[in-house]
């Protein structure tokens, strides 16, 4: 990340926007657009709280955030695109199916409900996030679930460890206990 006050200010602006969205989701959890805005901010936060092996990034250093079934997010992912985390620019990739993920060198693969493949193969350096009940038992690493009007997440750490991903302990603490 290039140290520059302008960029940092921009980043803060994005964060503010995200949290405000989050706040809104808090107030109106039943609205599905807001739900995906919250989920988009969660994806962004996962990028920050999970550590990837450094060798999985290409020359350009971009962070490939891939989404299967992206139409559900609408414009919610727009604020994340281009955002930088630890110097890596987040690039949003929309995939038709999860099988394309390997070829696309995805670092984070979000599989929307209904788009899951029969078997998810754990790929080194790829965080697989879903939103379907039982997603973890089918090889998912993080599953977003709605509890009491709030969006929480559960984590399958052994699978993530196999993929060389290190979860922040604080993230683990927040996962559904």
């Amino acid at each position, binding site marked *: *990340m290039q140290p520059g006050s302008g960029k*940092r200010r921009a*980043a*803060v602006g994005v*964060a*503010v926007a995200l*949290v*405000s969205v*989050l*706040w809104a989701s*808090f107030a109106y959890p039943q609205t599905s657009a807001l739900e995906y805005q919250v989920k988009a901010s*969660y994806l962004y*936060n996962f990028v*920050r*709280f999970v550590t990837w092996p450094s060798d999985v990034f290409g020359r350009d250093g971009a962070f490939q955030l891939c989404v299967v079934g992206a139409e559900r997010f609408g414009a919610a992912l727009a604020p994340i695109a281009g955002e930088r*985390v*630890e110097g890596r620019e987040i690039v949003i990739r929309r995939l038709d199916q999860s099988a394309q993920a390997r070829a696309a060198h995805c670092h984070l693969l979000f599989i929307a409900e209904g788009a899951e493949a029969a078997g998810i193969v754990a790929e080194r350096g790829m965080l697989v996030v879903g939103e379907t009940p039982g997603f973890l038992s089918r090889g998912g690493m993080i599953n977003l679930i709605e509890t009491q009007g709030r969006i929480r*997440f559960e984590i399958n750490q052994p699978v993530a460890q196999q993929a060389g991903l290190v979860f*922040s302990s*604080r*993230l683990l*603490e*927040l996962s559904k206990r």
Partner: protein
Amino acid sequence: MGGFLYRLRRLPISGKVVFMMCGLSAIKLLLICGGLILYERSTFERQMEQKLTLLADVIGLNSTAALAFNDTGAATETLAALSSDDHVMAAALYDVRGHLFARYLRRGLERSFADSVPILPQLTFSDGQAELVRTVVFKGQSIGKMYILSDTGEWHDALRGLFGIVSVLVVAVLSVAALISVWMQRVVTDPITELVDLMRRVGQERDYRLRATKKSDDELGVLVDGFNDMLGEIGKGRIDIERAQVELRQLNLQLEQRVLDRTAQLESANKELEAFSYSVSHDLRAPLRAIDGFSRILLDEHSAKLDESGRDSLARVRRAAQRMGALIDDLLKLARVTRTEPVHEKLDLSALAQEVIESLRSQDSARNVRIDITPGLKAQGDAALVRVALENLLGNAWKFTAKCSEARIEFGAAVGGGTAAYFVRDNGAGFDMQYANKLFGAFQRLHTVEEFPGTGIGLATVQRIVRKHGGRIWAESTVNQGSVFYFTLAQDEARAAA
């Protein structure tokens, strides 16, 4: 303050020294403790800031996920960890927009939180509380604010501890200082006290051989040396004075002895002389009586055988013999006066003088003399001797006024020549004051026998009588105007009479 200073001034030196040392120690201790407290205070503020900053940062860091994933419950749990610190009163997390996100309150505390982040640039102390706001940063991005509020009980605890230590220190240091100063002050005050005691002893016993012991080589040593030197000088001076006194006393004794010896010699010589003159006078009378008696027989029985010239010669022989008899009588009287010791009794001088005048009048009744005697003059003396003196003085006055047309004689008491005395005044012939010193010598006469008869022994007799009484006699006179004879019998009585 004045009373305090007065009491301080009255303290003995030892007390002053102890007071000064203890006072100094107390002042030093208080200054040190004051400095210590100030230092502790600044240290405490720094420590407080460090501690609160650390707490805020750690809690903030632990709350990053909760902030990011909007998990108030997790954030509240993290904040609750602050309960392990007794002094943290409250804490709050504010999200990135500055809205209250999670909060912590110490048990039993009621407090409302601001909905938005308080603006505090640094640690702020107020009302015994300290508050601080820190930005929670995660991976270079601010994701919220952490507010923490703490009481300053630690400071009070520290202060209480400090005061405890200080009071123990003050008591300990002061008692040690008192002990040491009581012990040390003796170095200074013992020589002084000794010197004062010695001075008192010297003053009471007058023993100038006493010496102070020198114990140090400082100013006190010099003082002791000076004191000893002074005692030595005084002692030496006293010895000289005592020696001189002894010598003087011996000299005095010798002198007295010499006076006694001389007096005895004089007295014996005088007695011999008196005995001699008495016997001479007495023995002279017998042949004189024979001369006079036989001359009278010649004149009475053999006058026919003598011519006029012979009778005249015989008459001259008789007159001379009689005159010589009178002289011898007077000399005997004088000798008797000299020999007899006066017997002191109460005398009525006025009455005595009156009697003497009466006897003079009876002998010479043709004279008309005005007599003026002050009544009631009393004195102490020998009646017989004083009568002789008055007989002589009044007799003289009678005699020397014989040629006056209006003779006057006075007897009284007055002040003459600066001394109170009795006097006999007449307005008779008087004498030239030039010869006043010859008046009282025996056989000294200022007038010829032809002018005024007399033997020249009377005033000598009066003077002896007056002297025997311890008195004095003197005279004032103007030729042809009269004389005054003053005399005293004893100094005190003459004054009382005046």
